[in-house]
């Protein structure tokens, strides 16, 4: 038994695929291209009836493309099937449009949940059931969904946008079940959810499967996926790299190292603890927040939170979803206003300043959900980060006066330098929309660095990344701190990621600060374990 990055225990998988398995969904030699660029190269896979098939792979490996191709959604994304096909019980799906594919019995739960935020829970389910004709069938399907997710029944008249991330995921799955699919496609159901919710989602998927639905589970969270799946495929750059039963893959070295984060060389290289505050070369100052409180209407998002980031140190803020982590970042950067409390950076008081003023003080951030200009190239996105350091007025830039041209050249050079640090040289002139997710995250990081910050705020830098990618991200962050001597504040809910990285950790839960201290100290704190892993996990720990 081994523990994956999410804290889920990997068991033996669920037995072998029996010889008499009837294939429900078959994908044969699928070739997909977006505007001439190949995304899938001859991918074949078989989903037997009543089985769960996991598809693992890095960001940009082609997992979402595969699901889009099966669901007939490629045209809406500017892609097309160049060869091969998908068949359901022998019937070719590739010629059908998305609505007909749903009626044939294949339904997809899209990545990022995508519930209809302004519709109520009940209306969302109704939208999912529109493809089935009979009143009775719909009522039956709805009863089944409410049985699976009692939480949704409680909230049936609420608008979906007001549900928590976990509840939205349940709603997205429930909505797809309304058409009683024979094959359910799940695109990253665990993305952005706290470990205990991920575990719950995993159990639900297993239950749905036991009730007779075949499942294709595309996941970053390999531990959860392999625990419940019967078979698994690993996609790498548009090709099937590995396939086998879930148990075989869970035991293979390659999968363990790359996707389960149990590399022989241990996790993240631990931050040298002997360097308390590496020399603050760029003049990093102390960030001190005191008694921060943020209220949205009656809701208290942050309740009297205080923390101090020492100059040149790496400080982590962790906590489950909805703990107030992003709110904290938004207050620090001036996007939200604090109802009470102050934030100081060195001598400057940040509370009450507008975002551009705060950026001018050397505070820069990245976003949890990417906030890049998709049509622009990496170079252009990074140049945006140089805006604060650009002197030429728009008139001289517009007239291309010599001074402005010289400055432009210097800026491009500076930006290229940063791109090298985060390993984006090769993608420098590609539009951001062409890059896989992991690369985009690094573009964000690079853009933040382009402002030459003395304090860098990172909002979930490894959200949606697999173990391998997060390890590389951690190394990049460590390198930055070492080389630039800036302070870094990381917001994460991946506890493992933070432990090897931070000098100090603050834990938030329901807007309150429940622990603050050195990583190992915080990790052992019983209250943190309870908030973070759920009491169920704690009792397991105690049993050991």
């Amino acid at each position, binding site marked *: 038994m081994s523990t994956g990055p999410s804290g889920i225990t990997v068991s033996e998988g669920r037995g072998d695929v029996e010889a008499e398995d009837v294939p429900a969904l078959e994908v044969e030699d699928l070739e997909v291209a977006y505007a001439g660029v190949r995304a899938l190269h001859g991918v074949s896979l078989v989903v037997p009836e009543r089985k769960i098939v996991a598809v693992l792979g890095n960001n940009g490996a082609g997992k979402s493309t595969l699901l889009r191709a099966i669901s007939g*959604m490629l045209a809406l994304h500017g892609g097309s099937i160049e060869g091969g096909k998908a068949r359901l019980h022998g019937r070719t799906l590739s010629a059908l449009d*998305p609505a007909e594919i749903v009626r044939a019995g294949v*339904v997809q739960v*899209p990545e990022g949940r995508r519930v*209809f*935020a302004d*519709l109520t829970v009940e*209306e969302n389910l109704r*939208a999912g059931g529109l493809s089935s004709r009979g009143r009775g069938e719909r009522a039956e399907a709805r009863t089944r969904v409410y049985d699976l997710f009692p939480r949704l029944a409680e909230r049936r008249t609420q608008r979906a946008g007001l549900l928590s991330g976990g509840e939205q995921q349940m709603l997205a799955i429930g909505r797809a079940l309304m058409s009683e699919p024979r094959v359910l496609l799940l695109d990253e159901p665990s993305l952005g959810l706290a470990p205990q919710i991920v575990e719950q989602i995993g159990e639900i998927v297993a239950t749905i499967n036991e009730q007779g639905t075949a499942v294709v589970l595309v996941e970053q969270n390999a531990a959860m996926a392999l625990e419940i799946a019967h078979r698994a495929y690993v996609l790498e750059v548009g090709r099937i790299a590995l396939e086998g039963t879930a148990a075989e893959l869970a035991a293979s070295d390659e999968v363990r190292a790359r996707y389960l984060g149990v590399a022989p060389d241990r996790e993240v290289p631990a931050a040298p603890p002997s360097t308390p505050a590496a020399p603050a070369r760029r003049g990093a100052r102390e960030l001190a927040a005191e008694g921060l409180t943020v209220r949205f209407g009656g809701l208290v998002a942050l309740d009297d939170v205080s923390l101090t980031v020492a100059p040149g140190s790496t400080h982590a803020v962790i906590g489950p979803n909805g703990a107030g982590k992003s709110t904290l970042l938004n207050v620090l950067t001036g996007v939200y206003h604090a109802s009470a409390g102050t934030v100081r950076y060195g001598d400057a008081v940040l509370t009450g300043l507008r975002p551009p003023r705060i950026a001018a003080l050397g505070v820069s951030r990245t976003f*949890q959900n990417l906030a890049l200009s998709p049509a622009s190239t990496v170079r252009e996105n990074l140049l945006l980060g140089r805006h604060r350091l650009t002197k030429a007025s728009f008139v001289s830039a517009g007239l291309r006066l010599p001074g402005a041209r010289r400055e432009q050249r210097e800026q491009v050079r500076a930006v290229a330098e940063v791109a090298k640090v985060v390993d984006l040289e090769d993608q420098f002139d590609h539009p951001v929309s062409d890059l896989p997710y992991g690369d985009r995250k690094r573009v964000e990081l690079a853009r933040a660095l382009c402002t030459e910050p003395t304090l860098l705020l990172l909002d979930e830098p490894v959200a949606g990344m697999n173990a391998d990618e997060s390890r590389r991200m951690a190394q990049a962050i460590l390198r930055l701190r070492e080389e630039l001597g800036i302070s870094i504040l990381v917001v994460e809910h991946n506890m493992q990621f933070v432990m090897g990285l931070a000098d100090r950790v603050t834990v938030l839960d329901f807007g309150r600060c429940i622990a603050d201290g050195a990583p190992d100290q915080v990790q052992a704190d019983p209250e943190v374990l309870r908030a973070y892993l759920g009491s169920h996990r704690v009792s397991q720990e105690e049993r050991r």
Partner: protein
Amino acid sequence: MTQFFELLVSGLSLGCIYALIAMGFVIVFKATNVVNFAHASVLMLGAYLVARLHDGMGFVGAVLASAALCAVAAALLDVIFVRPLRRRRGSVDALAILTIGLNIVLGTELSRRVGTDLLPSGAPWGSNVTHILGIAVPQTRIAAGAIAIVLMAAFWAAFTYTDWGVAMRSTAADPQTAALMGIRLSRVAAGAWALAGALAAIGGAFFTSFPASGVNNATGLLALTAIPAAVLGGLDSTAGAVVGGLVIGVATTFAAGYQDEISFLGRGLSEVIPFIVLLFVLLWRPSGLFGTRELTRV
């Protein structure tokens, strides 16, 4: 004071007509992301058909027939011209320019058919006036207001409670996910266009009734003033369309009724007042009164 109330009542009733027209505009935008300038010529088509048909089948029959024909015509515009462009992922501006082209072609053909004639709408109320609480109200205005309110209520109920409404709202919120749920986007789109066409026809019939004298070759231009109603309410808000319509209706009626008092602004202000109101509202709220502002959580 009596004049004020007369104008207000009359303005609100005209506003209801504007609201019907603007609502069609908004529905098309929400369901298909098309800013449909051809709406104006569909309205003129509706008014023209009512004027041509009412001799044979009576005013009510003519309005119903015209609504049905305009629904078909609008749906055909969508299927024949807009859908192929949308399939190939045409941008919002390309689609809007396409509809401007359609509007010109259709509008020109209708103007040619109308020629220099003035075709009365044939509304049975004519220019009759009813006195309510000492206020003189033209009967067309009462009928227009009542019908508009009934239609809006029916529309709201359908939007809220029926399968069609759920499909429309899901598609408006997130077309890709709606498609993944098995909702047929092209059907929803054609349905939205058809509904908008029917609403435009009904609006057109009242638009050209008393105090207007009938369909002439400038009706299409006049119909364009309904677009500010949709935009100022917020292009993606049906409630906004209603409020926007009422605002434009009242503003137009007041500008016409008080034109002697405000003659320093020039005569014929009522024809441009929708655009002036629109300008000021947009300066104050760039997404319209009820439009969704581009908001993202960071």
